[in-house]
């Protein structure tokens, strides 16, 4: 590679990479600076940890933080747990497997808000589920299931939307495992469960971790599922951030910035922690 060629390559990177790096560092920089009192829209700019102190001493903030963390962990783990056996099942093609793959991937094509609407419409007072339960004689009158206080609706939606992603990521790595490796394991006397624990799981660990990380990040930052189908008495981090920014006139931006930084911290460390736990679990299972 000549210096000239390298220079050409770096120049070609500018149009695509520079906007991304510039935009993202400006946006993240803006959030961090506003959280410590700079770029104020009200009052003078000066360094202050007041907003951090105000936010981190609020019970409400921690409730929201742990609520988002809980929903993210549960959704990521459930999506992967549902996708994994299906991916193993579809490892080798058989009549009808293409149809099943296509059906599993279908939710990817459905917009999140549309999915939320379909779900709310399905479980609402007048929805199909209630009508069906009444007609089957299981309940006497329709019951209220919308915006349940535990966030079950949000988890159902997240799993519905994210399971196909997990499936796509995992099925690739499952299919990449050669038959010769599995045959060798079988010849050495490994049963079905031993092959899964000692061969398949370790070889697909990276894809399990990748899907956990991606789903965790997407779910922790969720706004629309929570706003449409989530509990009314608690916010998600994104919802809380937006509410604070709009409601608290003078320092709304600064306090929302603290929530934003904490949401990024949660996304980063939470997803890494889940991925780390998965590695630990797979290693334990392989012993």
């Amino acid at each position, binding site marked *: 590679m000549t210096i000239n060629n390298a220079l050409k390559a770096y120049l*070609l990177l500018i149009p695509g990479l520079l906007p991304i790096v510039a935009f993202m560092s400006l946006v993240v920089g803006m959030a961090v600076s506003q959280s410590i009192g700079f770029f104020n829209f009200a009052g003078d700019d000066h360094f202050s940890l007041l907003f951090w102190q105000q936010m981190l001493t609020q019970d409400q903030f921690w409730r929201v933080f742990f609520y988002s963390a809980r929903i993210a962990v549960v959704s990521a783990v459930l999506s992967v747990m549902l996708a994994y056996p299906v991916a193993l099942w579809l490892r080798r093609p058989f009549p009808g497997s293409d149809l099943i793959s296509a059906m599993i991937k279908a939710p990817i094509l459905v917009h999140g808000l549309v999915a939320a609407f379909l779900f709310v419409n399905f479980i609402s007072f007048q929805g199909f589920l209630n*009508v069906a339960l009444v007609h089957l004689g299981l309940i006497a009158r329709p019951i209220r299931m919308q915006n349940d206080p535990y966030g079950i609706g949000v988890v159902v939606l997240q799993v519905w939307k994210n399971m196909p992603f997990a499936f796509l990521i995992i099925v690739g790595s499952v299919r990449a495992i050669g038959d010769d490796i599995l045959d060798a394991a079988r010849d050495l006397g490994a049963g079905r469960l031993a092959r899964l624990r000692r061969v398949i799981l370790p070889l697909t660990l990276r894809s399990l971790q990748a899907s956990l990380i991606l789903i965790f990040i997407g779910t922790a930052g969720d706004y629309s599922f929570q706003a449409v189908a989530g509990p009314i008495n608690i916010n998600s981090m994104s919802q809380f951030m937006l509410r604070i920014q709009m409601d608290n006139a003078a320092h709304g931006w600064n306090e929302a910035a603290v929530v934003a930084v904490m949401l990024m911290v949660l996304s980063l460390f939470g997803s890494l922690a889940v991925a780390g736990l998965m590695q630990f679990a797979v290693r334990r299972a392989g012993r």
Partner: protein
Amino acid sequence: MTKLLFSRNDVYRYLTVLLAVLVFLIFLALPFAMAVLWSLVDPSHPWAYPAVLPPVLSLRRWAEIWTTSALPQALYNSYALAACVSAVTLLLAVPTAYAFGRMEFTGKSTAQMMTLIPLIIPGFVSAIFFSALLIQLGVYSRFAGIVIGHTVSLLPYAIRLLTVSFTMVRQDLVDAARDLGASPLTVFRTAYLPVLKPGLLASLIIVFILSIEEFAISYIVGAPDFVTVPTILYSYLGYNFIRPNAAVVSLILVVPNVVLMLIAERLLKSADPAVVTGKG
């Protein structure tokens, strides 16, 4: 000895396929059928418990939304934005994808990782602090603001898809064209374009769809009066849940995008260089 027509394994397999189809029907087809039904409820004959089916079906709701709500404006905004965003995104992505797909240089994998940053920053964090940035910079055009925001957040997809297309261009064809004295333009037309075309079209379509579907930036930067299809749908959900309206807007949002996405998928599948160049 007569051989059984179906082995026990086959029966299990058919049963599980059947079960999968059933799950699909309950989790996707049925909710969509409900949405279609709700969009056809006649406004003067509401569908209320305990009626199992709507009393009167009509297209009046569709006509009413079209004439009384901001939906036509939202459709215009969404499609105009998507057209601008996909054109700009593609123009910016092509040179970078060329470098990733056809050149070797130090720091390539780090640079490729860096293009993925927009995917790991939570959408509402980018949206809210991008709007703060726009205020600081004094940019008040909502349209321009959303175009910038969408372009940056969708660049990773275009770069990734086009990088794959560029790696599929065959060096021997490029060399052969050059050896035969072709000008750079002819080399591009004969060796690059046929292989790149499906990838280019697919990325154009995918960025177009993702821009129409993007909610966070459109909602925050566009607030309060720049509407797009997802923001209008959002206004019909939640606390003031207007079900028939939400049903109509949902169908308007989903159906064209699904059709476009299926076209994009077909294009990507056809993007095999052996098919395009006629060489294995």
